[in-house]
């Protein structure tokens, strides 16, 4: 057993970290205030291979393992978890198209998705269905002109901002087997968006409801086969959970680093506050929790990469554990920053807000427990 990162993995982490610190971190607060991420950022990231992290080389991707990808998200989140998580969504969509799409669809969509001239959004959740995703109601009728979609998708990161939407919709019976996946390009007839959502965190990501009103998309925009959409949507989730966990981990690590720095400078009762044992113990606990989270996350990623039968359960366990750990750690970071932690200038309260949603999306942490419990009982 070898827990060390390989030379390439260290290089990947270092490069993503350096890019984030140089090109994302200095703007993270401004982008949050503006409620959007400049679209120019994406081609810069894509030029380094971030547009298709685990898309195959034949399709122009970087063909990384899921473990490698967690390093990218951990490193980028040290600059801004909201930006890193947005990149995760694009990558999840690109991977779906690469794995399940026809050669024709891949050739049409992926080249520009790899350069991120086309930014992709993932549309599964609806106003009336979240955890119970298979109950989704958005319908797609096959007509002579193509698929006609009716319904709406909620909480869509990149809604009204992205260039194409990977939409899970119903083409057949109720339940998971009646669901298909289609690509709807921006500008499609009948595609519209709700107002931008006001959110607690992830504020630099434009989020909106996506509405389909007799929305037309080409029959060729079907991903894979009709009726397999739910399977495709779920296939992306294990890895998505790893990514989101990595985003919590990196952000919390950045929070701890900032806290260490702050505590070495801030003085109280005549000494720097990192000299008080009660506070040192808090630092030690945060370090222990983050190292445990990191090891657990990488083990889950390794399970997914090696096709272990319990990979799904491990991804769920890691997601629950790492996202909760990340939130606990940044909350402690805020406490240790005192009043300054509560001010936006120090960037700590942003982390608290950004990480909170990681316990809700990519399957709530309650659903993670359902997956783990089912796995236990079935054993």
């Amino acid at each position, binding site marked *: 057993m070898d827990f060390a990162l390989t030379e390439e993995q260290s*290089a990947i982490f270092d490069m993503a970290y350096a890019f984030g610190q140089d090109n994302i971190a200095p703007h993270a607060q401004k982008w949050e205030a503006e409620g959007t991420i400049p679209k120019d950022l994406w081609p810069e990231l894509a*030029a380094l291979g971030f547009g298709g992290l685990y898309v195959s080389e034949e399709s122009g991707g970087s063909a990384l393992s899921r473990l490698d990808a967690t390093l990218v998200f951990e490193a980028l989140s040290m600059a801004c978890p909201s930006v890193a998580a947005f990149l995760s969504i694009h990558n999840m969509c690109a991977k779906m198209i690469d794995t399940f799409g026809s050669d024709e669809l891949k050739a049409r969509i992926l080249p520009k998705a790899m350069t991120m001239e086309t930014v992709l959004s993932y549309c599964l959740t609806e106003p009336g269905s979240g955890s119970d995703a298979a109950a989704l109601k958005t319908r797609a009728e096959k007509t002579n002109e193509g698929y006609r979609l009716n319904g709406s998708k909620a909480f869509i990161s990149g809604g009204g901002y992205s260039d194409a939407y990977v939409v899970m919709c119903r083409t057949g019976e109720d339940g998971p087997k009646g669901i298909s996946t289609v690509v709807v390009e921006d500008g499609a007839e009948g595609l519209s968006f709700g107002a931008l959502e006001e959110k607690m965190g992830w504020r630099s990501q434009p989020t909106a409801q996506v509405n389909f009103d007799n929305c037309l998309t080409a029959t060729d925009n079907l991903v894979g086969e009709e009726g397999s959409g739910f399977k495709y949507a779920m296939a992306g989730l294990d890895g998505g959970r790893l990514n989101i966990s990595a985003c919590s981990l990196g952000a919390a690590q950045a929070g701890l680093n900032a806290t260490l720095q702050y505590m070495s400078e801030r003085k109280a009762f005549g000494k720097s506050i990192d000299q008080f044992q009660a506070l040192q113990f808090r630092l030690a606990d945060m370090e222990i929790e983050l190292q445990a989270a990191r090891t657990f996350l990488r083990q889950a990623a390794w399970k997914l990469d090696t096709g272990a039968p319990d990979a799904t359960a491990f991804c769920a366990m890691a997601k629950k554990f790492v996202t909760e750990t990340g939130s606990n750690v940044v909350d402690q970071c805020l406490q240790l920053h005192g009043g300054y932690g509560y001010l936006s200038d120090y960037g700590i309260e942003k982390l608290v807000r950004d990480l909170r949603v990681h316990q809700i999306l990519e399957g709530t942490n309650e659903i993670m427990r359902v997956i783990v419990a089912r796995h236990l009982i079935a054993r």
Partner: protein
Amino acid sequence: MKVLVPVKRVIDYNVKVRVKADGSGVDLANVKMSMNPFDEIAVEEAIRLKEAGKATEVVAVSIGVKQNQETLRTALAMGADRAILVVAADDVHTDIEPLAVAKILAAIVKEEEPGLVLAGKQAIDNDMNATGQMLSALLGWSQGTFASEVDIDGDNAKVTREVDGGLQTITVKMPTIITVDLRLNEPRYASLPNIMKAKRKPLDEKTPGDYGVDVTPRLTVVKTEEPAARAAGIKVGSVDELVAKLKEAGAV
């Protein structure tokens, strides 16, 4: 034209440097190491020359411990074509002195016959700023040091040098040795596909013996110590007091 780029593995510039308890040097055990930032600029310049069609091959060389392999992989991931690792020490604390490095590089230059050696002006660990100049002397080649702009034109290179009080532009005859300064370029990030490809690029491993060079140190480090801690300042109550204090200190 082939370009040779020597790269050194040094303590990462972000690491808080600690002196070893016995004062024999800086503690490098379990410390993050990276490519010397000036060498990174040299690698970048070499790759740009290749992209501009002025160079045909970029060869990176590193002399030190086995782990210098990582530093060479960084150069390969940025775009160097192949690498030569000269393993000259077992312990990361053993610094190979500039003269020994220059002698090894001179032997490699004779073997590889590059038209240009692009090196960092100095390494950020012990700031010797000597290897490039020594190599020039050993080879009898021209040198252009502290370059902030390089323009290769056939048999000559125009080098803009950062000197005290301004910029100096010189023309040197090729083949030449150019040592680069901070403002020459901004090194690229190695892309993910290039990082993965780097491990498949050739990396030859050699020893100083292969080049007939003795790397036994000629210098003795007497003592290494931390810079003196800054003394605490004082608060003055008025401008008059400030002026009086400054006069007292001989500052005005």
